[in-house]
């Protein structure tokens, strides 16, 4: 009798798992299904044409470029910063300060995205506008700065985690050879945590690509292909938020599903890459 209960329970758990996983696949399915007419019309054109609905052009190329540039630039800002902070937390800083700093970084991950966007509009945009004496302040540069601050805490925590994973024995060995904190960090910990750092960067990149509010509120949302860092630009995510209003049958509406599809596939690639790396790393260790 309890065997029946056991098997029943297992079936229920299995059912939940199937439901959860089917959601992931359903999302992909819906995106592909809704974007299908547009995709059929020519995938190449979709990905390389500019966006000009009044001239019948529904390409999402400017948005792809916008997402790519803002994500990469924010990574450029955030990576050195995060690396330095994680050095501080895990090795260089004195124990009590590191613990407090880590707490602060953990708290930062709890700050809502909309707050970053809100403060960005009123604090950062005017500053950038006056600093560069050109443009409206709502541009790639500003959005990347804010996005960098947004993704930095997650990267820092991830790096610290990777540093902490370095086996104690290696650190002890370095200590016994007389290395100080900085030397241990530079010559022992970092080389061993290289993979972890790379994975952290990839994950942060995925996060930066998927962010909507910062670019919606701060990047200007113009449909032109950006020419300089001070140009207003639209990302794939902001495009979805802006065009959701259009007619359900129109190619404009379908283009947002194409954006969703591009984002989904790119994230899937990033996740697969991360897993490949993680497996190789743990494989080597074992």
């Amino acid at each position: 009798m309890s065997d029946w209960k056991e098997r029943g329970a297992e079936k229920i758990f299995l059912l939940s798992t199937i439901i959860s996983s089917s959601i992931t696949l359903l999302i992909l399915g819906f995106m592909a299904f809704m974007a299908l007419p547009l995709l059929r019309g020519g995938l190449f054109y979709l990905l390389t044409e500019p966006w000009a609905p009044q001239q019948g052009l529904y390409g999402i190329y400017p948005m792809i470029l916008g997402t790519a540039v803002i994500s990469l630039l924010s990574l450029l800002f955030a990576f050195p910063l995060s690396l330095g902070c994680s050095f501080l937390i895990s090795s260089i800083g004195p124990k009590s300060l590191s613990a407090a700093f880590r707490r602060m970084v953990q708290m930062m991950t709890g700050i809502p995205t909309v707050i970053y966007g809100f403060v960005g509009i009123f604090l950062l945009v005017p500053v950038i506008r006056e600093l560069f004496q050109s443009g409206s302040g709502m541009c790639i540069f500003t959005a990347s700065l804010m996005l960098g601050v947004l993704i930095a805490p997650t990267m820092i925590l991830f790096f610290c985690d990777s540093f902490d994973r370095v086996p104690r024995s290696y650190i002890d060995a370095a200590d016994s050879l007389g290395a100080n904190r900085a030397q241990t960090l530079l010559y022992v910990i970092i080389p061993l945590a290289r993979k972890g750092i790379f994975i952290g960067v990839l994950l942060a990149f995925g996060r930066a690509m998927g962010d909507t509010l910062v670019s919606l509120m701060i990047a200007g949302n113009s449909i032109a292909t950006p020419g300089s860092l001070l140009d207003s630009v639209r990302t794939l995510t902001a495009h979805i938020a802006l065009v959701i209003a259009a007619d359900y049958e129109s190619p404009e509406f379908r283009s947002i599903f194409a954006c969703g599809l591009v984002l989904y596939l790119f994230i899937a690639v990033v996740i697969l890459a991360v897993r490949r790396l993680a497996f190789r790393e743990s494989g080597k260790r074992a």
Partner: protein
Amino acid sequence: MRKKCIVTVLAMIFSLFVLTAGGVAGELDAFKGQRGTLKISGGTAHIPVMKEAAQRIMSAYPDIQISIAAGGSGVGIKQVGEGLVNIGNTGRKPTDDEIARYQLKLHQWALDGVGVVVSPKNRVKALTKAQVMDIFTGRINNWKGVGGENRKINLYTRDEASGTREVFWEKALDKQPISPSANVVVSNGAMKSAIAQDPYGIGYVSVGHIDRTVAPVALDGVIPTIKTVKEGKYKIVRGLYSNTKGEPTGLTRAFINYLYTPEGRKITEKEGFIPFP
């Protein structure tokens, strides 16, 4: 004799009270006994009027729930056509195609204009139509080209669902394409706050929304104000419509009628539009 006078006067005053009180109550009376939800979405210019009207109705009759969403004229038409909302507001007249497709019934309750605005700090206060066209298509991109400082012009435009944009593009720009490098904002309110914060920005906004935070720009000598729109001097005008799918009934009907009552018209005026008809 005197007593009679006093009584008559008192009676007149009393009946005046009764009549006006009856009048006011009568306007909201149409909602008596109504319950349920009324969903409104669409044009962002209409929102202040919608909010005020909704507030008065809901205060008097707590059983009624009115929800207001934004999105732009395109969204309004779409959602009312699909049956997702009861009233779809538009800042432009729906096309014949849209009317036929969704069986729309139009109810215009206000007249409004679309005016070019700049920051109050900008010293450029008047432009010709040709200059406006050149600026918005990107042919002129520095303020010194129209008599301002030597700074790049920051263009602001609306998203594609916007009726305000449609009207501006048709009537002020003669359907010329707006420069793709313009910043896109999602509502009249957003346009206002963007222009208010950017000393070198230029955009267009509903005339009813223009207040101290932005400065209107005269077009061919005519400043866009409610007065010039009413007098017909300012040419970029548009109507504010509330559209329904088919003939409105029940709560929807009561709401639309309310917009045409004296109280409704007062609200329209208060928010800066011209009551229509």
